[in-house]
């Protein structure tokens, strides 16, 4: 049983971490993020150049077919220096869904892998909580064309999307029936689609969609898309959970260094036992979180049910540990930790958002318990 990355994966992680430090230094991060897509464009193009956008894309769709450990290495690298952008939405989640659309969608997948187009999956609806099976958006067939009507209240990293993948109801009994859900593809500028865009505290840009008789293209198995959506989200979460671990370890390293160098009362504050113990608890949290990544990797070989259960467990424990480490990093830095000038508070804000991305801790605890 292997508990560490291969040499190639470790090198990828280090490259991605270095890339983050170069393109998004703490002092520049906010300015670049505020500029929106244009501020992140150079980094996005560079990532495409390096082939990273192709890594998660299945081989038969022209990608590199990266496995879970490859994706985790990459995600962890993102977390080290908090690379922003719609990587998970556009390069992991969207291609995993679009791959069910056959060769007709390969050109679009190729554009995602080249970084020239961005796509996002619009999975959550009002009154749905984080339940992926709650789909009230309706798909209506007239002749041979589909139209969609409904609301998607939160599209993770959908703020810059050129295309939206939209699950809608083509059958089933009621809005919470796991059966009767189908996948559709809609261009962001389609008439009848209203896109409201929002910035989160971590600089990621999300969207809210209102669809009124929007022409859409159906793809994938009609009426039975839920399992595909769940599998794609789980794959996306592997990257995000690894990002959380990368961020936790980075910010705990920074905090450890601060404890060694910051002096108060004539000595380094790291000499105070209470702060030593806190630092130890932060490290334990990092180790637990990493263990949950390993747990996912092990479970991924044991079938979809075991894998989904491991993802739910990891969302709970990594979410808790990540927020704890972020909070304590700010606390131990004191006032400067609360400032925006150090990367420390950026890590906490990212952890807070990662903890609710694709399902809160409460949501996944309930999934695990079910």
């Amino acid at each position: 049983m292997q508990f560490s990355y291969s040499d190639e994966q470790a090198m990828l992680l280090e490259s991605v971490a270095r890339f983050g430090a170069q393109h998004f230094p703490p002092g520049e991060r906010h300015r670049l993020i505020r500029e929106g897509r244009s501020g992140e464009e150079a980094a996005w193009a560079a990532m495409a150049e390096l082939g990273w956008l192709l890594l998660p894309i299945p081989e038969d769709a022209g990608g590199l077919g990266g496995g879970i450990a490859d994706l985790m290495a990459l995600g962890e690298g993102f977390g080290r220096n908090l690379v922003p952008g719609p990587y998970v939405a556009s390069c992991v989640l969207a291609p995993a869904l679009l791959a069910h659309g056959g060769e007709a969608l390969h050109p679009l997948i190729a554009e995602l892998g080249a970084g020239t187009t961005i796509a996002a999956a619009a999975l959550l609806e009002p009154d749905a909580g984080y339940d992926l099976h709650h789909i009230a958006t309706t798909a209506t067939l007239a002749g041979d064309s589909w139209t969609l009507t409904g609301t998607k209240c939160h599209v993770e990293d959908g703020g810059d999307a050129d295309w939206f993948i939209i699950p809608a109801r083509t059958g089933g009994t009621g809005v919470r029936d796991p059966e009767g859900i189908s996948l559709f593809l809609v261009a962001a500028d389609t008439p009848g689609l209203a896109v409201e865009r929002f910035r989160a505290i971590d600089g990621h840009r999300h969207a809210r969609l209102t669809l009124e008789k929007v022409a859409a293209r159906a793809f994938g198995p009609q009426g039975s898309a839920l399992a595909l959506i769940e599998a794609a989200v789980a794959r996306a979460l592997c990257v995000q959970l690894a990002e959380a671990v990368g961020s936790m370890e980075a910010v705990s390293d920074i905090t450890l260094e601060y404890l060694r160098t910051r002096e108060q009362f004539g000595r380094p504050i790291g000499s105070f036992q209470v702060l030593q113990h806190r630092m130890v608890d932060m490290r334990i949290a990092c180790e637990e979180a990493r263990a949950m990544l390993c747990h996912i990797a092990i479970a991924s070989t044991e079938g979809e049910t075991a894998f989904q259960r491991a993802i739910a467990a990891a969302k709970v424990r990594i979410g808790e540990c990540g927020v704890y480490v972020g909070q304590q990093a700010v606390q131990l830095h004191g006032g400067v930790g609360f400032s925006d000038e150090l990367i420390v508070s950026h890590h906490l804000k990212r952890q807070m958002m990662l903890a609710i991305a694709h399902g809160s801790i409460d949501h996944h605890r309930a999934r695990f318990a079910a």
Partner: protein
Amino acid sequence: MHFTLDPADIAFRDEVRDFFATGIPTEWRTRVRAGLRLNPEELTAYQKRLAAKGWGAPTWPAEYGGPGWSPIQQYIFWSEAAAADAPAQFHQGLELIGPIIFTYGSPEQKAHYLPRIINADDWWCQGYSEPNAGSDLASLRTRAVRDGDHYVLNGQKAWTSYGHVASHCFVLARTSDEAKRQQGISLLLVDMKTPGITIRPVATMDEKHHTNEMFLDDVRVPVTALVGEEGRGWEYGKVLLDRERMVTASVAVFLTQTIRAIREAATRRTIGGVALIDKPGFRAKLAQYEIEVIALQTMVLRVMADASAGVDSGPLGSMIKLRWSQLSQAGTALWVGALGPEAAHFAPVDQGAGLPEDMPYAMQGALYARVTSIYGGSSEIQHNIIAQRALGLKG
């Protein structure tokens, strides 16, 4: 122990309730419930309205312009203010420097500054923290050198909250070098318009400008700006810090506002047609939170009763500060959680994009709450104070 209000207290409560029945704009509500400060203009208007009623300085003795309320009356006042979604008063003038001035200040200082604090004519900010003097305040390096009828101030201050709007600053500075670091520090009242003062904003994680760095370059202040005696500023400063912890006793009463915000958000939000507030898991969490708030508020009530009876509450102030910061963090986190996936919608990218109800303030409150366990003596320092002063455990 008396558990019931006497008729005079009940009459007072009704009077306060009437006062708060009007004049509190509903647009303040979400920010107030999130524990966020209103804008200086709004707080000034609120303070002036209280002052006009004679209630500008609830904790001050009558001889300095306070209403002369008993601690129980103060508690009633805060409870009613909280119930009406009124804000906590801005404390730096009212609770930090005001009491120092009426305790140690000269007759001229009292006559000039105290009414102006009550009427919100002046806005005070603190000038004690420095980049290398945070928890270890006694290591401060700003100097005040006597030059004829003036002190000349040089140094750098940190976390000068509202320094960008303040008219005055109370500054701790070193006036002599003594063997003991706590000696030789003096407290000075400085007009922010004095030449040589530079304010630089510090961006914080809640994306709200409230704090600053302050640079003092040959700032000449008259010797009449000295509070009390030269070299005794540490003593006065310590009284001030103790008082700062007691300020949270009043703010703790306002946690009921956060409970209301959580309950309303959880009532609005449904999952599969069931309101979040009706889900057992969420109900249990909110109940737990309310129970912890009850414990804290009853601790506050005990402090007030002790103060009434002239009894020293010992470390209860530190305990309240500690628990209040934890509960303000837990409450805003629960609130943000109740908003669901849309808690990620903090700011619109395009004009016209409608934010979810309660945003951005609920999230801003959750972020701001992180500093409540850092400012005014961090939670770690509060633990030390309790361990050393109350339990006699020495470091």
